[in-house]
C-alpha cells in the first residue's frame, strides 16, 4: 500500500510542489535570505523521504519528470539576455570585463583553495561552476566530472552568501556605482544575488541578471576547454 502510493511519480511531483510552495511562503513571510525557497524545499523533501524511509529511486520516478524541464529552463535564459540587450549594448565593455574577470577568478580561486584544503578532485570539480546559475552549473558539473547534487548545494550557498553579504561588501569597499554593483553581484552570486540587486535599484537588477547569464556562458566555455572530459 505504502509502496503503491510513494512510488507513484505523482507523489514525488506533489511533494516537490508543496515543499517549494512552503519555501516560497517562508521566504516571503520572513524576508530572510537564509530561508531560500529551494533550500527549504530540499530540507522538506529530504526529511520526508528519511522519516517515511522512502528510497530515492521511488522519489526519482516523479523527479525525472521535473528534471525533464531543466533543459528548457536553461534554454529560455536566452530571453533574459535578449530583454536586456539595450543595457548590454550601452555598457558592453563593463559587462564583459566584469563577467570575464569574475568567471575566471572564480574558477581559479576555487581550484587553488581546493588544492590548499586538500579536497577530493570530484568535490573540487563540483565546486568549480558554483558561482553561475543552477542549470548551467549542473551542465558544467556533469561535463567535467563533478557530482551534480554537490554542485547544486554549492550554488545555493553561494547565492545566499552573495545576497546577504553584497550590501556589506559594497559599504566596506565603498563601491557606490550602480553599474559596478549590478555586474559584480550577478557575476558572483547568480539569481539569488540578483534578487538583492533588484532591491538595490533598477539598473543593478537589470545588469545583475544579464551578468548572471553571460558569466554562466563564459564559465561553461572556459570550464569545458580547461577541463575536457
Amino acid at each position, binding site marked *: 500500500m505504502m509502496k503503491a502510493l510513494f512510488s507513484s511519480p505523482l507523489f514525488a511531483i506533489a511533494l516537490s510542489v508543496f515543499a517549494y510552495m512552503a519555501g516560497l511562503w517562508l521566504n516571503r513571510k520572513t524576508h530572510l535570505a537564509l530561508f531560500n*525557497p529551494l533550500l527549504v524545499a530540499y530540507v522538506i523533501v529530504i526529511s520526508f523521504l528519511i522519516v517515511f524511509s522512502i528510497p530515492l529511486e521511488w522519489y526519482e520516478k516523479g523527479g525525472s519528470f521535473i528534471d525533464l524541464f531543466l533543459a528548457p529552463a536553461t534554454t529560455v535564459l536566452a530571453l533574459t539576455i535578449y530583454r536586456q540587450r539595450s543595457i548590454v549594448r550601452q555598457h558592453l565593455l563593463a559587462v564583459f570585463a566584469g563577467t570575464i574577470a569574475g568567471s575566471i577568478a572564480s574558477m581559479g580561486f576555487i581550484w587553488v583553495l581546493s588544492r590548499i584544503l586538500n*579536497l577530493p578532485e570530484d568535490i573540487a570539480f563540483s565546486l568549480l561552476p558554483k558561482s553561475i546559475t543552477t542549470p548551467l552549473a549542473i551542465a558544467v558539473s556533469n561535463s567535467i566530472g563533478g557530482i551534480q547534487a554537490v554542485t547544486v548545494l554549492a550554488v*545555493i550557498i553561494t547565492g545566499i552568501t552573495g545576497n546577504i553579504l553584497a550590501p556589506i561588501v559594497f559599504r566596506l569597499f565603498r563601491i557606490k556605482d550602480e553599474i559596478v554593483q549590478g555586474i559584480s553581484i550577478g557575476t558572483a552570486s547568480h539569481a539569488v544575488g540578483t534578487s538583492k540587486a533588484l532591491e538595490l535599484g533598477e539598473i543593478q537588477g537589470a545588469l545583475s541578471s544579464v551578468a548572471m547569464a553571460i558569466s554562466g556562458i563564459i564559465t561553461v566555455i572556459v570550464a569545458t576547454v580547461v577541463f575536457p572530459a
Partner: protein
Amino acid sequence: MKYLKQLAIVFLFCLAGESISFFLPFTFPSTIISLLLMLVCLLCNVIKEDTIKDVSDFLLMNMAFFFIPAGVEIIEHFALIRSILIPFILIAIVSTIAVMLVSAGAVALALKAERRFRK
C-alpha cells in the same frame, strides 16, 4: 493551445542543441548550445519574443523548482559531504566575496577606460 505551441518551440530548440552537441568533436553541454541558438534567433528576428514569451516566463519564474530532484540526490552523498563540510562551506563563502571584488574592480577599470576614451 498557445502554451502547447510555445512549449513545443522551446523543446525544438533543446532538441536542436542536443543534435548539434552530438556531432561536435568535443563535449559541450547541449543546453548552452540551445540557449545560444535561441539568443541568435531572437537577435536576428528569426523568432519573435511573443512566440515563446508565456512559456519562457513560466519557466524563468519557477526556475528554482526544477532543480529540486537534482539536489535531493545529495541524500546519497551525505557521508562524503559531512567529511568535508567545513572546507566546502569556507570555499563557497570566501570565493563568492573574492569574485564579487574582482568583478567590481574589473568593471570599475572598464568604466574608467571608457570615460577617458570618450573625452
